[in-house]
């Protein structure tokens, strides 16, 4: 486990050196300030749209960060040829993969916490507040969704280049978030092979939409039952384990050729 933590620490240091996070934070701050400065028919005192747009931006930026960080970890080691020195150490490929995932997930979660903190400050400056338990659940499920996303991008990057892995992860994540929840509605108008195909997609792809509690936090609907949160934690852990297993299967016998350009 210690070896995994060392790898995870390297991921943290890499992100802090690259400045992606600072750019996203400044962008989020700028956009939130712009939201506050908007003139809404001369009205004041509205705060829900700031929560809504702020959380949407936090979701968007955390997805961008999760996919870009996770998809570049292994291809980058290969391009820099540091993969050889890493694999020469007393470290299994499984530990390397898990350490990379742990680092990518934890650093993205930390960045997302900063996004949330910034949003809370802006909302408070506007005179509003989030219901604490609902916001905690929103953050927890958001983090679990990011865990699945980083595992997906990392698994894809074991067999694809960084850009290909990132592109495939975006497609998979967007399909899971936008299309999969609509399948039961589509099925009302489909029969036969097409209906079966849609059903397979419905069960085979992860349900990222279940990890989105933004509307509850924005419209003050209150927290969801603890049993549902526990179910979703279990569901996400199963998916993360499955994706990391697939990644490990793709990575464990992968041959690296010196001088191969990525």
């Amino acid at each position, binding site marked *: 486990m210690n070896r995994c933590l060392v790898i995870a620490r390297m991921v943290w240091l890499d992100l802090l050196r690259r400045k992606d996070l600072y750019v996203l934070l400044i962008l989020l701050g*700028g956009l939130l300030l712009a939201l506050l*400065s908007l003139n809404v028919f001369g009205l004041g005192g509205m705060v829900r749209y700031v929560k809504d747009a702020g959380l949407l931006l936090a979701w968007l930026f955390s997805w961008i960060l999760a996919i870009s960080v996770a998809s570049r970890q292994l291809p980058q080691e290969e391009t820099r040829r540091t993969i050889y020195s890493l694999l020469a150490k007393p470290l299994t490929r499984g530990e390397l993969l898990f350490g990379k995932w742990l680092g990518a997930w934890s650093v993205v979660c930390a960045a997302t916490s900063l996004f949330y903190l910034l949003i809370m400050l802006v909302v408070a400056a506007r005179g509003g507040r989030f219901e604490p338990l609902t916001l905690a659940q929103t953050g927890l499920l958001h983090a679990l969704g990011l865990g699945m996303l980083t595992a997906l991008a990392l698994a894809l990057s074991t067999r694809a280049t960084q850009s290909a892995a990132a592109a495939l992860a975006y497609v998979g994540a967007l399909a899971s978030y936008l299309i999969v929840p609509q399948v039961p509605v589509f099925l009302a108008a489909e029969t036969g092979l097409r209906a079966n195909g849609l059903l397979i997609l419905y069960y085979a792809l992860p349900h990222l939409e279940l990890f989105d509690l933004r509307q509850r936090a924005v419209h003050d609907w209150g927290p969801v039952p603890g049993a549902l949160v526990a179910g979703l934690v279990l569901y996400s852990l199963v998916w993360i384990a499955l994706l990391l297993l697939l990644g490990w299967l793709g990575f464990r016998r992968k041959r690296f050729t010196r001088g191969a350009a990525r």
Partner: protein
Amino acid sequence: MNRSAATGSLPSATLALPGLAALALWLAAFALACYTLEHPALQSRGSNSFWAFLLGSGRSALGQTLYEHADVYFHGGVANSSRPAFRHLFQRWAEVIAPNRHRHEEGISIFETMPWYRWATQLDPQNVDAWLDATYAASAIGQRPEFAARILAEGLRHNPRNYRLYLERGRLALRRSDWSPAAYALDVALRVFPENRPADDVEARQALLSLLNLGSFAHEILGERDQAAARLRQLLSLAPDNAVARTRLTELERGADTRAAALAYLQQTLTGEHRCARETDDEHDHHP
């Protein structure tokens, strides 16, 4: 010693200052851009507006999306979803996360919808539905008719020949018991009402009936009996089964003082006019 410390701190200061200056400049430029986008000079020219230049015809689609988001806010955050073909564990979870009950925002919380109407109308000032819904939300639910009148005035600046906006202006004036402005707005609406509407345009037919009905009330209350009778005759030519209109016309032609009765009818008409498009009998909950 001091000198070396000073020289030692110089590189980090020289690195940090330009970075901070760049950040400050970026924020200033961003704030200025936000301010200028709000400027009336960039907002009021329809197809020549900043948004039209930036997004082209895509601005209508984006405006429509924002308008639909305003509708979600109007319904307390509940999206308008279609009925699924089957129910499964994931859907039951999704229903707990996002309940699909029907409710409306009430009181001042309705003003939380306004930013979305604002953006929808900024992106597409020709989205008359957005202007009308914003007006309805502000006047009928938010109880701020003067604010609703401002929204409507802005909508009319962008759509000066739209009968629906004049109809709403007339309706708003009737709610405020401003009979003369109401009669004027409804007369203008009648003048700009397009003549060659297809026979199967149910919405336009309904709007014309409303125009004639409300116009007749306004003129009747003002004591302009001939104009009121003329509108009722036109209304009966379109809807001969309207028993209330027939009774009112008979009373007017008889020469009776019908103003008190007109006021009572008008109250009934105004309270019963709005019906939510999402309403179904089995899942309606106006009082969450």
